[in-house]
């Protein structure tokens, strides 16, 4: 997953903890192999290789693509799994702002509306296009791992994939877990701690890969329609029944920016916490400290 992950389990026996742990490791490895865009042998790479002709995808990928399509529709085109080429232009490692030409070249191979998606056939509109399911697979993986633990008979625990959490279930005495909401700008630290008995917690934020030129921060949250960075929250955290839903809500709110994103979160009605660049905190999650 390319991020610090942790697994907390409470079980009767060490062996059942090991069995659950093994299932989690296997599931994470499977999804990483399948969807990582850093790997040349991934399914995502295969889709790119067949950009012109199209490829029949499996059920799981189709469900993920359906979900991505729904988020694209819900966000008016802000959420776009084809925006990867554009995102890389604003990578901190470039150490410079992308030029107008680069942006228009990237925009030419960006846009979910250019993808032909008729389950199970996926065909990219341009050989240069890429799909990157990274924006939803991590949260999906957290939910899947929590479920594999429950299937293995473990009812109490937390799956933490880089700060996106899926709870297997509350502590064995029924009390909630105390979990940290990761802080923007300092991914190792937590901005707040909350009590969570079950469900999922996800945070979308402007943590890494941000480009800083002359002291100005260019976020890696991009509007795929213009190619420009979005002025938004430093981070948005959402609690929901499933980590996948929490993550989608947090990501959409980030993409919408402070005004629209804030209104969206209020309308959504899920517990949330927003942190802006100046450190001011909003939302309605009850924090412990």
């Amino acid at each position, binding site marked *: 997953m390319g991020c610090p992950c942790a697994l907390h389990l409470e079980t009767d026996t060490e062996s059942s903890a090991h069995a659950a742990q093994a299932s989690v490791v296997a599931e994470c490895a499977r999804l990483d192999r399948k969807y990582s865009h850093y790997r040349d042998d991934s399914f995502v790479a295969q889709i790119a290789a067949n950009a012109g002709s199209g490829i029949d995808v499996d059920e799981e990928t189709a469900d993920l693509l*359906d*979900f991505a*399509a*729904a988020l694209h529709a*819900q966000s008016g085109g802000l959420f776009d799994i084809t925006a990867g080429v554009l995102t890389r232009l604003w990578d901190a490692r470039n150490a410079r702002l992308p030029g107008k030409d680069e942006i228009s070249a990237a925009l030419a191979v960006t846009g979910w509306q250019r993808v032909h998606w008729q*389950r199970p056939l996926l065909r990219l509109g341009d050989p240069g296009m890429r799909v990157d399911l990274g924006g939803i697979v991590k949260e999906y993986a957290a939910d899947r791992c929590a479920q594999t633990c429950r299937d293995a008979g473990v009812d109490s625990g937390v799956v933490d994939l880089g700060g996106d959490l899926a709870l297997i279930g509350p502590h064995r005495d029924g009390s909630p877990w105390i979990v940290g909401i990761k802080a923007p700008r300092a991914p190792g630290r937590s901005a707040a701690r909350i009590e969570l008995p079950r469900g999922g917690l996800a945070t979308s934020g402007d943590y890494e890969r941000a480009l800083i030129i002359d002291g100005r921060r260019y976020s890696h949250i991009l509007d795929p329609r213009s190619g420009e960075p979005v002025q938004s929250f430093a981070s948005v955290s959402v609690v929901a029944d499933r980590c996948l839903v929490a993550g989608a809500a947090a990501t959409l709110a980030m993409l919408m920016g402070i005004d629209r994103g804030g209104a969206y979160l209020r309308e959504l009605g899920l517990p949330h916490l927003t942190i802006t660049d100046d450190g001011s905190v909003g939302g309605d999650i009850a924090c412990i400290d």
Partner: protein
Amino acid sequence: MQTVQPWQRGRLARWDMRWDPDPLQAAMSQHAYFSKEGTSGEIGAAGGGCGCN
């Protein structure tokens, strides 16, 4: 007709899109109509009749 995928059913799943969003209020309205009109009302399992005039 194109199949409406599960993810496209978001609006259909809303409370205000149910056939009968508020059963308590519907029951009271139907009871009033039923007791004043000569032909019976809703489709579905019949509730108890009454001697209302």
